[in-house]
């Protein structure tokens, strides 16, 4: 193995290349991150030694200097031992200081190829080329610290190679059907979607990621009193309660204000996150490849081959609904069940108005029908949902109380009645429809979600029937795509069978690759 990046090896071998020395900064961050994530808890004994020693300042300085040196040396070594080689069909990577790793990534195995630019690479015009394969956990195939033009070159080369392979596959197979998908796509550098800061604020508000955060914080809600006490003294609190109307009402108002401010804070975080990630959003389509470029501090460039889109979802929560915006999510094949990974496999086009979404879908699926006739699901869905999610749990939980004659618990029996309108709304919004080529599933109750997918992308379908459904000639159809599963509950059994038969006829006769 040659060690200098400028030395050209014999004519047969292509030279091994090194990253830019600035890459060691990337490794420094990476090591620090890994360190915080993994090694920090095991440092507790050291801290105890530190606290028990006489010369706290001296030992602390020594420890700090020691760590810093260790980190710097380790990132320099990581940089030094990282070499890559670009072939016609694959990229080879050698890395590892003690544990050597030799990796060969075949171009046709690459699932995603993105270009990211952290802020510390910006002055040097360097980028990270992120190469993801279906099985990779992340980071293994990153070329951190190569020139931007070069990264773009490599990416284009890989994408070109991939489309060559694809073209030969298509040639061997069904060309009548495939031309429909590939002809009409424009190839300009004009963005097909952009987003202003205003749009991004709207995206931040209408993005459901926020509620995931909320669920995360749910365990803290019972402790809300402690949290309040932490921030305010008893006297202050008493004064506030007094000012707000005293006693119970005052306390309730304080709690409501607290919850509202947590909510607002999260909205703010969500909006900031959205701007951080999607600032200067530009979506372009070249040949068959979508490219998304955005980012406030770290610029990210993400590309996606059109043939890898498994489904397109238009979705919005109630805030988005109210703002008249929805988000377009291009779903890709997700490796495994890992939630985090799933989320990374989503390609988001933020804050579209309905016409923009339609236009974009038109560009991505040129052959998709403008109108798909949809059907409602059966009304019994309401009863079943109420029964399983509310009536049974409420009855079970309340039973011991009622037996002990605490009849006030029975007021909870009103819960299903109160929730009825919501469930009924969900039922009304649940619709499904298909044409020869596409399937469409709509759902949602305070927001909306509409998933459009080409039938040939389906991996598997399941018809299931409970005893009740069987009596009523109903069934639930579950459709598995490489990007996840979707359900159509309580549809007539004939429809379920029609979908099932048509899906399998489609995937068995259509030879376009799903991947």
């Amino acid at each position, binding site marked *: 193995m040659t060690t200098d990046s400028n030395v050209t090896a014999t004519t047969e071998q292509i030279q091994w290349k090194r990253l830019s020395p600035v890459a060691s900064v990337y490794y420094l961050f990476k090591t620090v991150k890994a360190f915080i994530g993994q090694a920090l808890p095991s440092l507790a004994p050291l801290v105890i030694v530190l606290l028990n020693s006489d010369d706290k300042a001296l030992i602390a300085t020594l420890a700090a200097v020691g760590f810093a040196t260790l980190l710097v040396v380790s990132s320099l070594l990581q940089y030094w031992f990282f070499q890559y080689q670009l072939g016609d069909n694959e990229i080879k990577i050698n890395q590892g200081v003690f544990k050597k790793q030799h990796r060969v990534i075949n171009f*046709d*195995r690459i*699932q995603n190829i993105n270009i990211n630019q952290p802020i510390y690479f910006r002055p040097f015009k360097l980028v990270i080329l992120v190469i993801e*394969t*279906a*099985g990779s956990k992340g980071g293994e195939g990153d070329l951190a610290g190569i020139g931007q033009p070069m990264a773009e070159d490599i990416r284009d080369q890989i994408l070109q190679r991939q489309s060559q*392979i694809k073209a030969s*596959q298509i040639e*061997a*197979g*069904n060309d*009548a*059907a495939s031309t429909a998908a590939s002809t009409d796509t424009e190839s300009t550098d004009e963005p097909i979607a952009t987003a202003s800061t205003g749009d991004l604020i709207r995206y931040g508000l209408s993005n459901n990621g926020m509620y995931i955060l909320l669920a995360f914080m749910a365990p803290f809600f019972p402790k809300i009193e402690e949290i309040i006490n932490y921030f305010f003294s008893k006297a202050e609190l008493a004064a506030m309660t007094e000012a707000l109307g005293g006693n119970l009402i005052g306390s309730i108002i304080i709690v409501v204000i607290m919850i509202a401010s947590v909510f607002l804070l999260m909205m703010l975080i969500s909006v900031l996150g959205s701007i951080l990630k999607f600032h200067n959003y530009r979506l372009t389509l070249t040949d068959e490849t979508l490219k998304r470029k955005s980012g406030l501090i770290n610029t990210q460039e993400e590309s996606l081959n059109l043939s890898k889109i498994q489904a397109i979802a238009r979705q919005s929560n109630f805030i988005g609904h109210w703002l008249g915006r929805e988000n377009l999510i291009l779903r890709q*094949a997700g*490796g*495994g*069940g890992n939630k985090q990974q799933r989320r990374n496999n989503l390609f988001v086009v933020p804050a579209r108005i309905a016409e923009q979404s339609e236009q974009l879908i038109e560009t991505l699926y040129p052959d998709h029908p403008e109108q798909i006739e949809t059907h409602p699901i059966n009304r019994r869905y309401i009863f079943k949902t109420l029964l399983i999610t509310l009536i049974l749990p409420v009855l079970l939980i309340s039973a011991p109380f009622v037996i002990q004659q605490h009849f006030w618990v029975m007021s909870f029996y009103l819960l299903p009645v109160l929730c009825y309108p919501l469930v009924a709304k969900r039922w009304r919004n649940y619709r499904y429809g298909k044409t020869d080529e596409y399937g469409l599933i709509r759902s949602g109750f305070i927001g909306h979600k509409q998933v459009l997918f080409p039938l040939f992308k*389906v*991996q*598997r*379908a*399941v*018809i*299931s*029937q*409970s*005893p009740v459904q*069987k009596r009523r000639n109903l069934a639930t159809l579950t459709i*598995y*795509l*490489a990007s996840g*599963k979707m359900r159509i509950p309580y549809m007539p059994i004939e429809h379920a*069978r*029609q979908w*099932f*038969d*048509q899906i*399998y*006829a489609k*995937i*068995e*006769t259509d*030879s376009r*690759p*799903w*991947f």
Partner: protein
Amino acid sequence: MTTFTNTQITVDDIPAVSSVEFTDLHPKYCKVNLTDTIVWVTIPLIPLSLILIKGINIPLIWVILLFVLLVPLAFVLSYYRAKARRYAFREHDILFQQGLFWQKTTAVAFNRIQHIDLTHGPLERKYQFSSLKFFTAGGSSVDLKIPGLPEDDAQRIRALILDKINQNPNQDMPDQGSLQGKEAAPHDD
């Protein structure tokens, strides 16, 4: 390679799942499956009854009654559950049906198969049965499993399907390493 045809089909011509003739699992397998029930119903019942008797002071007679009622019921159910499992092979896919009360029908198209596992648990091995597991890219676990196939049949079916997959020129798809199934479980579900 045969020439590719793609004649248009009307809805009536689409092969219908409702007209497929399914094959039952091997009758002997339904009995082997009962041995499974001993492991999964009877054995867990023993510590449970101990808890009931010692912990909550429930009279022995009730616990015995529980056994007398539950165990035969479990046997009957599991026998008929095994009986209700049926499979069918078509030209381009495998179909599988299961469920006594909650019924399920699914299929895996040959050109969506990522890989096939042939497994046998200790009991299956004793009676020379195998299970075939089919994996697609649409999910992280087994997509379709045919249990209780006589060893030879399982081998033959697998070879046949692999052959069919290899005939198809478009099967040049990346093997998704992350979708590998877990190690063969030593028992049926």
